[in-house]
């Protein structure tokens, strides 16, 4: 009974990826196009390309930059978003500017940031990632803080909770479902920017490696880079989900009961 359910879940999770891989395998088998190598070739190239040395020199720096940039965006986004959400005047003042920056696609900023922070160093890349990730977190935090249940605010006031207790025990937990929504959007933007920030002027990094493979016509290697990037995305999403389900357990539980599940 339980095993059957487990098997079904595993199928639901892995079924579609396996079907797609199989389709790719069949469709590309026997391909002679240099840009479109058989999947078999790509998979054989994978362990040879992504050796431990290469992971340390190319993947880890990229992930570190993503981590730093993302963390900066989370911190700045939550702090600024909470301040804007709590202060109507500040909100009225900053809203048009925020909407403007949100509308600017983050990759466009890469050349501009590179002018100031340099093409090759870590700084420009971290700033790019942080700036791109900032907006969804910031705007969602503002909305989360504003949308706080008024009865809860009244309760906090009538028990005269101090400013920081209100912040830590009422405002931030209340806004946390929205903050997580923003953080999830920001994570995918962050992965994109991690790659894009390396396309222009980097010699180390996952994105840089993919570009170098492409330029040196190491096409199967290039494909392995794309696959690795996808796998990293899946892994990051899984980590995110674990953190989210821990911190938002109350929210998930409450919603399930409200929906009568």
């Amino acid at each position, binding site marked *: 009974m339980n095993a059957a359910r487990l098997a079904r879940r595993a199928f639901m999770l892995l079924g579609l990826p396996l079907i797609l891989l199989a389709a790719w395998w069949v469709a590309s088998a026997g391909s002679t196009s240099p840009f479109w190598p058989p999947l078999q070739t790509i998979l054989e190239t994978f362990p040879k390309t992504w050796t431990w040395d290469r992971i340390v020199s190319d993947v880890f720096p990229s992930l570190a930059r993503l981590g730093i940039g993302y963390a900066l965006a989370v911190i700045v986004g939550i702090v600024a978003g909470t301040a804007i959400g709590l202060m109507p005047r500040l909100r009225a003042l900053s809203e048009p500017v925020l909407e403007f920056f949100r509308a600017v696609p983050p990759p466009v900023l890469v050349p501009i940031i590179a002018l100031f922070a340099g093409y090759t160093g870590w700084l420009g890349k971290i700033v790019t990632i942080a700036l791109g990730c900032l907006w969804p977190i910031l705007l969602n935090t503002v909305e989360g803080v504003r949308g706080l*249940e008024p*009865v*809860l605010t*009244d*309760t906090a*006031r*009538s*028990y*005269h*909770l*101090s400013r920081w*207790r209100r912040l830590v*025990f*009422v405002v931030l*937990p*209340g806004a*946390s479902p929205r903050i997580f929504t923003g953080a999830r959007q920001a994570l995918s933007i962050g992965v994109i920017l991690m790659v894009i920030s390396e396309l222009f002027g980097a010699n180390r990094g996952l994105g840089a490696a993919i570009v170098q493979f492409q330029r040196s016509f190491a096409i199967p290697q290039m494909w392995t880079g794309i696959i690795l990037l996808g796998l990293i995305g899946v892994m990051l999403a899984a980590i995110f989900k674990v953190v989210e389900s821990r911190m938002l357990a*109350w*929210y998930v*539980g*409450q919603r399930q*009961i*409200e929906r009568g599940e």
Partner: protein
Amino acid sequence: MSIIQSVRLRSAAADATAAGRVGDDVALDLRSVQKTYDTPGRPQVEAIRHLDFSIRRGELVCVVGPSGAGKTTLLRSIAGLLDLTAGEVVLDGEVVAGPPQGMAVVFQEYGRSLFPWMTVRQNIELPLKEKGIAKAERHAKIDRALEEVGLTEAAEQHPWQLSGGMQQRVAIARAIAFEPSVLLMDEPFAAVDAQTRAELEDLVRKLWKDLGVTVLFVTHDIDEAVYLGERVIVLSNRPTVLMEDVRVDLPSERDQLTTRSDAHFGELRGHVYELIQRAKRGDRPDAPPAAASSPQEA
């Protein structure tokens, strides 16, 4: 100020309460309270025209009125969540400006007044932490409050895992653990089923007797008001003034069956019902003319 003072002296009812005011047995005192909503871009709404009454320490007073009588406005004003247009609310001899120390509020929307990210215990604990009570004492107070409301087993659960009646018990436990000098309740049982409601009414009577806390209970339910209160303050329709301050001289031991079938309960209920019907028709008491005009002068 002097105008209000003279108004009070002219009104017989005000005279009677004015005597009580001097003594320190008054827990809560409303002095010429007036509230007009004046939002820019919207028509002015005069919610409360003139209210003047006081509650003695240890009293259980109910406030009823027709729907739209400004009951919630009144309660929020008393709780310091709303600024008054004129007059003042005095709690334990101090004018209320912002939520006062010695007051706890139980809101109608129990489900939304509890913090869903905290367990029942944490919900009750947070205000006590704010009060600076040491951990051991905090825990003792929480346990006692939970026992009073019969929720000892639910301490580690989250509010949303409990039924509506239980959630409101948590809100009540949080309020009594806070040990307020006055407990305000805003239609707390309006959203629970009839059986739960009867239980919760008896719980309020029990807590009131056990703890000797002063209770101001706002409700739209006439039966509930008469059953619970030692006094029932009947409000007029909007803009609100006092219709009548009804003494409920029923025995202090009350229970759902005998009290509600008591002939005198029926009389009181009938009287309050009549008042509410009159209030709904727009019938207003002969409010002292100065009371109506004093807001402008003050």
